[in-house]
């Protein structure tokens, strides 16, 4: 009969394995970032009934990618042999761009998306923001639209290299 410590060790290694699989799932809109990079993956647990429970949190409450995240997590975990998976959406604590790691910001920039600048805060009307062009590094840029290709991005343009680019909104 396995000792309590052995059982705990088994649960821990199961949890670590599941986390490693979940952590590799990427954002369908920004495939260079994983859910872990984004801070969307909040927790992975082994439940009492042996199921793997995954907590994810939305960047925006209406983010349409949440359904894809859930599907991809279930698929990848099933491939790794986890048949009983429950993906849950948690709202608290509320996600902010501060959760995107420095490494992930660099990956975003290399991919052509300007990472969020500064700390998330309540901004003033017509607030002056400086966004650096992810292609040429110029700060001589202008906002085209508050809204871009997805809820989490805005549309900017570089006045120096003339390239339009996505900016990951700071919220």
């Amino acid at each position, binding site marked *: 009969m396995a000792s309590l410590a052995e059982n705990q060790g088994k649960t821990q290694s199961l949890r670590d394995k599941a986390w490693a699989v979940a952590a590799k799932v990427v954002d369908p809109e920004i495939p260079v970032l994983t859910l872990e990079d984004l801070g969307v993956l909040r927790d992975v647990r082994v439940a009492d009934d042996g199921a793997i429970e995954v907590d994810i949190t939305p960047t925006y409450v209406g983010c349409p990618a949440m359904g894809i995240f859930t599907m991809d997590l279930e698929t990848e975990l099933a491939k790794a042999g986890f048949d009983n998976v429950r993906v849950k959406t948690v*709202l608290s604590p509320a996600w902010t761009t501060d959760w995107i790691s420095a490494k992930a910001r660099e990956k975003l920039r290399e991919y052509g998306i300007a990472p969020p600048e500064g700390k998330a805060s309540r901004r003033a009307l017509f607030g002056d923001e400086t966004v650096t062009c992810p292609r040429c590094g110029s700060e001589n840029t202008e906002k085209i639209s508050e809204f871009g290709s997805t809820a989490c991005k805005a549309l900017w343009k570089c006045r120096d290299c003339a390239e339009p680019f996505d900016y990951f909104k700071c919220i």
Partner: protein
Amino acid sequence: MKDLLFAYILRLADDAAILGQRLGEWCGHAPTLEEDIGLANVALDHIGQARALYSYAGEVEGKGRDEDQLCFLRKEREFSNCLLVEQPNGDFAETIARQFFFSAFMLPFWEKMKASKDETLAAIAAKAEKEAAYHLRHSAEWVIRLGDGTEESRERMQDAIELLWPFTGELFEADDTVKVLVAEGVAVDPASIRDEWRETVGKVFGQATLEMPEEGWAQTGGRSGMHTEHFGHLLTEMQYMQRAYPGLKW
């Protein structure tokens, strides 16, 4: 108490869902591509908030109704959204005025709701607050751009404000449901937001060279299910799929 909480969450959900539906009507029709994307994005935020609120309302009610049933299978008189959000899109100025009045209210509303004793409402508020801040900024910038723009854009913006002004009073209405839940530390007292709302609106109108209408008669009724003539038409479109194909899933 459970009934009151259910009713309260439902009106927040209805506000968000109906405004999301209205904004969604612009998809493919907005004056510029950027605004088309912009209004659809704002719509998406409201629909996301509505989904979280409807799901929670269903849990509180405890009768097994989910977000879809609450949004798509209730009748006109059962909806308790404020009248402002159901007003037609009109021209771009009317859409912007409606969004500006609503967002200027919702930003301080969600800020205060974060302190609610109801943990789920507080969690939804923490998400929605960030989105409301963005909506306020977007709509206020348009109010200024249009108000302080050409002769025609200013006239249209001023007309839109006059048209929708009577519907803003309802935002501050507190019926018995609100009063009881405020006393319990669950709901936000809308009266506590009035000064900030007036200040925001006044400041933006000042910059936009627009005139603030005088306080006057306010049209209310939405919270008790008495809607304007436009609402039934909105519901027929919004609920069509679930009515025509009951239980339809994507």
